[in-house]
């Protein structure tokens, strides 16, 4: 492994030399960020492709909680577990635009099931006659199957922030565990000819850094087949090496700024000017240079990009600004320069980088408990007093349930404020709500207790304080997954990272062997997702060779 890093470090030096040469000829690269989460507006990527001449378009679908949600759907149907929004916009004209304009798409839409997602993409491409569309899928982020084997080699899987918590493997039902991959496999996929790159969990900004690794020529230089996940880890001292790290850091910041979609263009923005319309809000485009600086701008449409909107997004979901850790580089933004150029363009520069840590972050989740929510409307006069009385009555009626935890919130009376601040404001300001929405969030390891709790909500309309209303159907307990951040040594993950080009449609497999329709494709996905690398590779090869059933059968069994 060390050898790869040595190789990489040499290459990084070559790259920085090369980049300085190309600076004048190719001043910058245009990368769009057309989605910030699974569920974001699907018109955005189509709109962005229509109105701009991009080099790459990136879509980040994975918030921390998304992998948990996808794991749930994957466990109920092995064809799911990826961001289905991707299919929607590709079919709405997105796929034709990608082809006509020659824009490469890089997305983590694969979620916990990137192979099925990539098969869908190839299906859609073939439906418009783009039969030679090169769809690459990056796998290897799923570490569920190697948790126990790497634990034997000394991995602890302690909680990343709170060492007093039980380690991950002490929990029974671990649903998903995915390492954050870096930009390396993405850059390499494009260098190998991918038009579309589908990944599972990669660090958000790495989607963009991956495009830059290709645009700068670095990824093409990597002769060795096994590509490190990200930047080198051993210490450098040369000035040039520092320059390379600064480049990765600059690109990561550009990536961080556009990976949440319209949040940098006036969405979720405190200082939105009154005359700026965000009903047709634009999504961002980064014009990224080979000196590590970038210009953040917007697509055609509403919204605004200014210094303030860029700073709000810059600080979104980060902790120590001098130590922002990605798999590719540690980013230091404590000296950052943000300069408004006018016309919705903001220049970002002066970012520095350090060698990334040896360990990769893992986001994992385990089945923790069950959860239920209920709400009721309590009207005035004196709505807060009545709502509190309603809560008291309810709690008395369910007092025999010893294994539930109830959180009551009174909306309209400051429920969105942290408790200490709420009390302070209550003392000094005269808030006079007209009505209160009271909401109960209840968790328990015992599903039945939650059913009993839920059955006590509707009766409050007839047996509670006057005017209580707003009851809808009785809510059903749903599984609650606890998020558990931890880390793993790089070598365990590097060994299983693979780039596979998808060439066979699921429909072809099913058409040829209809009697296998239900079981085998499902099992193939399972094998692809969960098996050790050797089996997975075997299955992938077989699929690539347009099927040889006995071999698949052998591999599956």
């Amino acid at each position, binding site marked *: 492994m060390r050898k790869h890093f040595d190789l990489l470090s040499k290459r990084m030096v070559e790259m920085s030399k090369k980049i300085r040469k190309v600076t004048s000829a190719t001043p910058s690269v245009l990368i769009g960020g057309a989605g910030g989460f699974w569920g974001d507006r699907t018109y955005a990527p189509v709109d962005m492709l229509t109105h701009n001449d991009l080099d790459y378009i990136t879509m980040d679908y994975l*918030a*921390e*909680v998304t992998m*948990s949600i996808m794991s749930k759907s994957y466990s109920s149907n092995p064809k799911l577990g990826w961001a289905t929004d991707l299919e929607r916009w590709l079919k709405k004209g997105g796929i034709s635009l990608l082809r006509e304009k020659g824009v490469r798409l890089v997305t983590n839409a694969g979620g916990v099931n990137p192979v099925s997602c990539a098969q869908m993409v190839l299906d859609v491409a073939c439906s418009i006659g783009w039969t030679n569309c090169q769809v690459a899928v990056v796998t290897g982020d799923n570490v569920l199957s190697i948790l126990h084997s790497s634990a034997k080699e000394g991995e602890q899987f302690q909680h*990343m*922030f*709170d060492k007093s918590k039980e380690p991950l493997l002490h929990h029974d039902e671990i649903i998903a565990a995915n390492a954050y991959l870096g930009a390396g496999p993405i850059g390499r996929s494009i260098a190998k000819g991918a038009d579309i790159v589908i990944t599972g969990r990669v660090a958000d900004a790495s989607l963009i850094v991956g495009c830059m690794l290709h645009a700068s020529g670095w990824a093409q230089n990597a002769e060795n087949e096994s590509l490190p996940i990200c930047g080198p880890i051993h210490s450098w001292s040369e000035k040039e090496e520092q320059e390379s790290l600064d480049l990765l850091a600059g690109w990561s910041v550009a990536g961080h700024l556009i990976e949440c979609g319209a949040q940098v263009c006036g969405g*979720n*923005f*405190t*200082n939105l000017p009154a005359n700026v319309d965000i009903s047709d809000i634009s999504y961002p485009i980064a014009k990224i240079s080979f000196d590590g600086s970038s210009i953040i701008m917007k697509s055609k449409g509403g919204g605004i990009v200014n210094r*303030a909107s860029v*700073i*709000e*997004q*810059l*600080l*979104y*979901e*980060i*902790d*120590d*600004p*001098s130590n922002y850790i990605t798999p590719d580089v540690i980013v230091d*933004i*404590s*000296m*950052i*320069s*943000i300069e408004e150029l006018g016309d919705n363009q903001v220049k970002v520069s*002066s970012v520095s980088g350090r060698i990334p840590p040896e360990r990769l972050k893992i986001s994992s*989740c385990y089945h*923790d*408990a069950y*959860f239920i929510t209920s709400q009721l409307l309590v009207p005035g006069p004196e709505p807060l007093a009545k709502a509190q009385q309603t809560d008291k009555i309810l709690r008395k009626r369910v007092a025999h349930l010893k294994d539930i*935890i*109830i*959180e009551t*919130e009174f*909306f309209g009376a400051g*429920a*969105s*404020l*942290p*408790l*200490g*601040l709420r*009390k*302070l*404001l209550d003392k000094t300001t005269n808030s006079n709500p007209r009505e209160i929405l009271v*909401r109960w*969030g*209840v*968790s328990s390891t015992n599903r039945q207790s939650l059913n009993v709790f839920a059955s006590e909500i509707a009766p409050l309309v007839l047996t509670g304080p006057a005017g209580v209303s707003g009851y809808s159907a009785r809510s059903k307990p749903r599984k*609650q*997954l*606890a*998020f558990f*951040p931890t880390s793993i040594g790089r070598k365990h993950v590097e060994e299983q990272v693979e780039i596979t080009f998808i060439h066979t449609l699921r429909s072809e497999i099913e058409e040829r062997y209809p009697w296998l329709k239900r079981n085998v494709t499902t099992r193939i996905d399972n094998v692809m997702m969960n098996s050790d690398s050797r089996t997975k590779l075997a299955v992938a090869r077989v699929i690539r060779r347009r099927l040889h059933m006995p071999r698949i059968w052998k591999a599956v069994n």
Partner: protein
Amino acid sequence: MKTKRVYLRELAHARSGDKGDLVNIALIAHDEEAFEILKQGITTEILKSWFEGWTEGPFEIYSIESIHSLNCIIHNVLQGGGTTSRRLDAQGKALGQALLQAWIEV
């Protein structure tokens, strides 16, 4: 010396987000003068008092001079994280706006 109440919204704009069980709240001062007031007034003690009953912390505050910003980190505040919180604002997205309603004495 007599002090006066200054609301955070007069000094700064804000955005909050989550990471596991922590929330970060960025307070971005409107100008240099506001930033100086903010740096004086926003302490881990005052954050602790505002979040009393929700979390014991720890609390961290990072100052980024070149962009006149404070990044406030509040640990152990989401009842385990976005997937296990029993609150409607499970990811603390509203907390940035919540803080803009607070004041400090200067």
